[in-house]
């Protein structure tokens, strides 16, 4: 009853094409952001920031990046972890070699490096499609894994291959407490989500979607497949690269190449599938699901009073993940975002059935 757009007339093109055309949506989003920025830092516990919110936000960002490539442009990638790694290690090298660089500049430059490599590995997509391409992106994954594990220059000759991020500092202020880290990541995620949301509804996003739906037909109607595919790879790897840098600097602090192995790529792919292919909101929902599920699974046996070893829990986690993915694909191939949309549609009509 509250959620109804009756009487909201659009009198200008601008108001018709705005990001959230329905007033209630706008109020909700603004309210949510005010809560996230203004209230959350004061009421959240350290555990909440450290274990849930920060990883959730960073992985959402990476999922948005991957969703642009897989969900919007239809190019399946199993190499997301590699692009995160490139972001992380470029940020590390920039921070170590140019100590005075601003943190935001470091992250954006890290994204640029990731973009370059991403576009490079995107070139095969012009020739090969579908599964062939998915396997080809694995080449990026394994090559990058090897590169950072073996070439000592990238890890600044650290003997163990482990590297640590320098202390985070922005305009003279340290970013140390969990709440500060949360705010820092949140700001990044909001900006990039906004950019991504606008990109996908603009001309470039439409060219991606046309390419996804049928690339030959898209070419026939005048979309340049090279531009569409390479720009999707570039934008996607930029966002994923920034997410990788954030993951390494803000969440992990110190890391080794294993942090970005092929399992990370799969994890992100699962987020995108469960959340919803071709949906920015879905990236958030999927990330939330994948971050919270293992925590729940860890707690559950304790609540039920069944003692289980950690190894057993991790195996069961695998099973639950696998089963859930199949379940989602069968029940709702378009993911949690679709369920959300259906719910909203129902809410508009409530209390009437039609």
């Amino acid at each position, binding site marked *: 009853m509250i959620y109804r757009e009756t009487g909201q007339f659009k009198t200008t093109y601008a108001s018709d094409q705005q990001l959230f055309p329905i007033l209630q949506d706008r109020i909700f989003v603004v309210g949510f952001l005010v809560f996230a920025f203004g209230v959350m830092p004061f009421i959240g516990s350290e555990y909440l920031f450290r274990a849930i919110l920060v990883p959730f936000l960073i992985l959402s960002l990476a999922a948005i990046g991957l969703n642009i490539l897989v969900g919007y442009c239809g190019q399946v990638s199993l190499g997301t972890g590699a692009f995160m790694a490139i972001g992380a290690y470029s940020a590390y090298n920039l921070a170590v070699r140019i100590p005075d660089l601003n943190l935001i500049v470091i992250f954006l430059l890290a994204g640029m490096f990731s973009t370059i490599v991403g576009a490079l590995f995107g070139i095969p997509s012009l020739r090969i*499609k579908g599964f062939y391409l998915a396997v*080809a992106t*694995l080449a990026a994954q394994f090559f990058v894994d090897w590169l950072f594990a*073996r070439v000592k220059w990238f890890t600044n000759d650290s003997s163990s291959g482990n590297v640590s991020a320098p202390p985070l500092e922005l305009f003279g202020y340290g970013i140390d407490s969990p709440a500060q880290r949360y705010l820092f990541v949140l700001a990044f995620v909001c900006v990039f989500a906004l950019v991504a949301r606008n990109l996908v509804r603009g001309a470039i996003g439409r060219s991606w979607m046309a390419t996804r739906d049928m690339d030959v037909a898209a070419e026939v109607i005048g979309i340049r497949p090279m531009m569409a595919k390479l720009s999707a790879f570039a934008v996607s790897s930029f966002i994923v690269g920034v997410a990788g840098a954030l993951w390494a600097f803000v969440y992990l602090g110190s890391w080794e190449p294993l942090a970005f192995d092929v399992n990370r790529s799969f994890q992100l*792919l699962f987020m995108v599938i469960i959340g919803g292919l071709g949906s920015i909101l879905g990236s958030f929902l999927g990330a939330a699901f994948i971050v919270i599920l293992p925590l729940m699974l860890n707690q559950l046996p304790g609540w039920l009073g069944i003692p289980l070893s950690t190894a057993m829990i991790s195996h069961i986690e695998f099973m639950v*993940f696998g089963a859930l993915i199949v379940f989602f*694909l069968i029940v709702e191939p378009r993911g949690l975002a679709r369920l959300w949309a259906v719910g909203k549609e129902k809410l508009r009509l409530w209390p009437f059935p039609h």
Partner: protein
Amino acid sequence: MNAATSRNLTIAFFVLLAAGALSPMVVGSTKFPQWLEVVLGGLMSGVLYSLVAIGLVLIFKASGVFNFAQGAMVLFAALSLVRLMEKMPFLVALAVTIAIMVGVAWLIERLVLRKLVNQDPIVLFMATLGIAYFLDGLGQTVWGSDIYTLHVGMPKEPKILFENTFEGGILVSMEDVYAAVIAAALVALLALFFQKTSTGRALRAVADDHQAAQSIGIPLNRIWVIVWSVAGLVALVAGVIWGSKLGVQFSLQLVALKALPVVILGGFTSIPGAIIGGLIIGLGEKISEVYLGPMLGGGIENWFAYVLALVFLLFRPEGLFGERHIDRV
């Protein structure tokens, strides 16, 4: 790129590959017997990659599903066998494992594939990713996650051949030779099954055209169960051979990932492609690791196969023997 350029580039690719494989001998960094050992070692591991790849190709041909779970099936089959062998004699354990793999195939068809008929291939692919995770978890939950040694009576000690021809002879692992023989027998058996039995003919019909096959009365669901069972059995054979070589452990699953460049190199729809692709990948990987690896810091085995396949795809996107893909709007 037209067909002729593609063919010429393919030939050039193989000439280069052969030149690369022969070069260590030409520049004199190695002697012929040592080189031959490396080549044989590469070919043997190539045979094992082929075994996993054949399972992938079988399923892809019959149901159009790119089965990412093949590696997980290898691990699951090997784990089941090794744990069952602790409790019962080998042949009984083998029979029970076969029954388990058929059961898995039936469940996959019943619970997953049947519900996803007519979905995009990419959705089916992702479903097999889910199956892979599930099988990994299930295998380790039920059977445990330690490293198990598997003894199925394959000789472990290497043998020296051609002692009279070359100085020092060639060191060959008899285990690898057995593996190659088993793999060859399996391939021959599969070929017979596909060519001579009516089920095999039905499988080929389904592979050609689902709808046409269904319209002449071939039961799709049963065919899928059969094909996944066969893939499960191939996975079992691969699991036994890999398992007795490396021990049954979680990393078997990662070895199976190597089958992916093999199938894209050979072409998704071709069993000969899977075999030849496997040999090329195995050979290329071993030679590059032994002769190129030290220059690059070692460990290049992990990515060389993928990069090799990627480069090859650039001028031959359908792989070596794959069907040329024609897009229609």
